[in-house]
């Protein structure tokens, strides 16, 4: 599933008039790729997730998933957000199977449950199957949210800052969970983030957006190592890359002023 965003412009209607957020944005994400999108706050990163998932239509331009133009939501997309938005009245397993209730209505409960359990094991929460979300920590909730976004085996996974509200160590744990999921499952991933280390550690392609209205400013591959480890983040090669990205963000911010 490669994703092509072609000359997309988008604007929102606000009380002050039209607010352009994206301008002639073009980028392509290869099949099974992991692309991180960074940029100054309010530059329209979340708009991209809503466009790719088909929740909104671009004002101009088009988006293609495997050469098919997106016009409405696709059941082959999974989403996770900064807020884990778990349903407080459902236990962990029933939260995870929620997408299956929409996408695979004919599947039996046991099948749904076994799909969910498989993911729950991957993220290391199998013994919390019957707990309510209110009994979980922030990191655990986010793990459950990741399971839910993957339970229907989507071809595209869209992550909108899912680790932003977590403390540093939990975040690093979840990065590794993400590596594991990516290895076990077959999906193309778009990650929106503010954390450059996260972008470099998780993604194989990092894209810097310019300030609003955003367009592509910088596009870099991050394949510094086959199997990425947290310690790699302290290598000189990665430091160099992070410095470059930081510099690009600054350029993007200046454009905003």
């Amino acid at each position, binding site marked *: 599933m490669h994703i092509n965003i072609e000359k997309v412009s988008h604007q929102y209607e606000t009380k002050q008039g039209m607010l352009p957020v994206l301008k002639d944005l073009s980028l392509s994400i290869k099949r099974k790729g992991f692309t991180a999108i960074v940029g100054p706050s309010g530059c329209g990163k979340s708009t991209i997730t*809503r466009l790719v*998932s*088909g*929740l909104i239509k671009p004002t101009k331009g088009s988006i293609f998933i495997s050469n098919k133009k997106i016009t*409405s*939501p*696709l*059941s082959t*997309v999974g*989403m996770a*957000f900064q*807020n884990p*938005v778990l*349903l*407080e*009245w459902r236990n962990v397993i029933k939260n995870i199977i*929620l*997408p299956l*209730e*929409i*996408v695979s209505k004919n599947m039996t409960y046991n099948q749904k449950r076994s799909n969910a359990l498989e993911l729950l094991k991957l993220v290391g929460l199998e013994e919390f199957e019957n707990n*309510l979300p*209110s009994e979980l920590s922030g990191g655990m909730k986010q793990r459950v949210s990741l399971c*839910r*976004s993957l339970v*229907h085996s989507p071809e595209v996974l*869209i992550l909108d800052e899912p680790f932003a509200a977590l403390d540093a160590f939990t975040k690093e744990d979840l990065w590794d969970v993400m590596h594991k999921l990516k290895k076990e499952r077959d999906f193309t991933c778009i990650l929106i983030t503010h954390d450059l280390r996260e972008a470099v550690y998780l993604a194989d392609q990092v894209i810097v957006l310019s300030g609003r209205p955003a367009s592509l400013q910088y596009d870099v591959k991050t394949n510094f190592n086959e199997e990425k480890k947290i310690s790699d983040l302290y290598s000189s090669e990665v430091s160099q890359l992070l410095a470059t990205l930081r510099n690009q963000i600054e350029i993007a911010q200046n454009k905003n002023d």
Partner: protein
Amino acid sequence: MIRINNFIIPLFSLIIFCLLWELLVWYNNWPNYKMASPSDLWPAFWKFKHLFLIYGWETFWRTVVGLILSVLVGLSLGILMGFSKTIRIGLYPILVGFNAIPKATVVPVIALIFVGMHNMNTIIIVILISFFPICVSISIGLSTLEREYEDILLSLGANKFEIFYKIALPKTLPEFFGALKVSTTLAFIGTNLMEIIEPHGKGLGHLFDSGKISADYPLMFAVLITLAVMGIFLYYIVVYLENIFAGWAIRK
């Protein structure tokens, strides 16, 4: 242990309350036409126990039926207002204005429209007085649903109805039960307004009225206490339902 405490503690506070009440009347040496004391109430109950049963039941069932109907009315209006901004803006001023009218003034109007149909009159007043909190809480609950909740289902191609019954409705249940508790106590006000103001000769309101006419103050107090007990009873039924349907929202 928690279960027993949940019963013992309220009972204990009730006993203390009655003792203080008794003490207050005794200390001031008030005659029972000024303020009846708890010890005066039991004889009043006993003397009219037959009437208490008949009238109490009349008041009770009409309150419950009215309450159930006001849940239906409140839910439907709340759902409409929660999903459509146009309906919300359109209906709010009417509903608020309507709610601001003292219901005591509506009683004669209703009684005139449906002359002689006492049960229906009473139930209509109950609905009018109780649906408002339910309607407001449901509409606010639905209209403030975070966008991400909708997005996780919408991005899978779910329709509005699926979003409503899988997410929006269960998520609003705690607010709904909060409002239902308010409505439950309001409902008794509704029944008694009709029973006291319109002389149909039915319900505890009527018994209260006859107590007033014959200057039987302990009887009047006994009616008030019966109403309070019924209110508490109905309230705990709502709490019980809340535990079943929205127990996840209650902190243990």
